[in-house]
């Protein structure tokens, strides 16, 4: 689905790896390892200084940027909602291509388990967990094939985090999504991931199946990381 060939950018050094269709990849590793930078490269919020990225076998530059960004949806770490109502936010992506269908909010809010009547609320009046759900629904409104998630639950309390995790799991299964998620919570990685990419100082130090690689770390860096 997505392939990196010898990609270097900022903190990232010479990365080569593949994310296959329907993978649920977990990117994890110490702070500053370059995880967010990697998600930015997937969504083309940045272009690599060196190397090549392929999307479905095609060089990423050959896909029109805005199309790519809609297909490879990115959920940023903080909700970053636009001022206005919940509905305004949900409509944003599809409206860019005039493909918003009135009533679509019903399905979207159901996905993220929010009540329908929240649609006319001002986003400033929502709780952190609600905002993050709206943000997720906003990304889903574009009907992405790949979902990139940057620490989607790190700013939330445990209960809300679990709810969102649950929502994600159902969504990904129901829609056959390919997922790349950054998380610091290893229990979350076990629950959601099928494949792990352990990043350390800009390199992919170790990859493997989840949860297997967490139970049997090969490198000393991963062992140390897991002990913390």
């Amino acid at each position, binding site marked *: 689905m997505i392939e990196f060939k010898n990609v270097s950018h*900022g903190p990232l050094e010479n990365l080569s790896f593949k994310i296959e269709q329907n993978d649920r990849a977990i990117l994890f590793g110490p702070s500053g390892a370059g995880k*967010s*930078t990697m998600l*930015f490269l997937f*969504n*083309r*919020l*940045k*272009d690599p200084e060196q190397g090549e990225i392929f999307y479905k076998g095609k060089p990423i530059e050959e896909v029109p*940027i*805005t*199309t790519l*960004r*809609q297909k490879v*949806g*990115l959920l*940023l*770490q*903080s909700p*970053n*909602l*636009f*001022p206005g109502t919940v509905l305004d936010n949900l409509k*944003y*992506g599809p409206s*860019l*291509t005039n493909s918003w269908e009135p009533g679509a909010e019903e399905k979207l809010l159901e996905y993220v388990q929010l009540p329908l009547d929240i649609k006319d609320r001002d986003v400033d009046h929502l709780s952190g967990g609600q905002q993050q759900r709206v*943000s997720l629904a*906003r*990304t889903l409104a*574009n009907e992405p094939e790949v979902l990139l998630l940057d*620490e989607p639950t*790190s*700013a939330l309390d445990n209960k809300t985090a679990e709810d969102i995790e649950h929502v994600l799991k159902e969504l990904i299964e129901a829609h056959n999504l390919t997922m790349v998620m950054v998380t610091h919570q290893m229990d979350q990685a076990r629950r959601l991931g099928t494949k792990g990419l352990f990043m350390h100082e800009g390199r992919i130090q170790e990859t493997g199946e989840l949860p297997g690689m967490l139970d049997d770390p090969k490198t000393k860096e991963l062992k140390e990381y897991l002990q913390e």
Partner: protein
Amino acid sequence: MSPEISNQSLLFLIIFVVVPLSLSYFYQLGMSKNIIVSSLRGTIQLFAIGYILTFLFDLNAFIGIPFMITVMIVIASFHARKKGKELPYVLPTIFFGLILVEVSVLSLWLLFDMVEFTPSEVIPMSGMVIGNSMVAMGLALERMKSEFTENSGRLLAALSLGAEPKQASHLIVQRTLNAALIPNVDRIKTIGLVQLPGMMTGLILGGVEPIMAIKYQLVISLSIFSSVSLSAMFVTLVMYKHFFTKNKQLLDSEEALKEYSSRG
């Protein structure tokens, strides 16, 4: 009141300088030198401008007016540029923006016979238009920069959803223009209530009938209002593009990323 102030009377202006000077002296504010130098400098500048204006007013309008307007626009451009030095193409943007504003306003004045094409009318009125536009452009630039930094998360969100830079920065453009226009709306609203506008005061002191002075003031106030709006709009709409790369990426996304990750 006599429209002429004699040179002797002018000498007594020194008293007005002596007040802050003695304040500075007795309270040891250490500003004495600064006060003297500034007052002298201001006086010399004004007299110099007076002589230059006298000279220009005597020139043929078709030489004096374009010359002086060009000088004003060049100086104003360099001044306003300071607010956005790190941005590409600021100087030419401001320069052409000011030309655009001045030419439009001047054309309207002349077309509707509000102002006569003589240096003594066009130059001071243009000076006010250019000066205010310069300030408006500087403010718009500053505001735009801070809006871009503050909203980098939202901009990234919009871009990541597939927005064109133009669509993504819609909110920022809106806020910048809003901020640029509100003080002007307020100024027009309270005009004449708190303080008589400088030009009107000048005309009345110079012996012009109040109603006549008001007409001039209206022309200049509304001209300034519209040129300030036009200036802010022009720089904002031209400059926002330079915050993005040709691949529709936020130019400062290194900074934005840092900002964004430090928040989480």
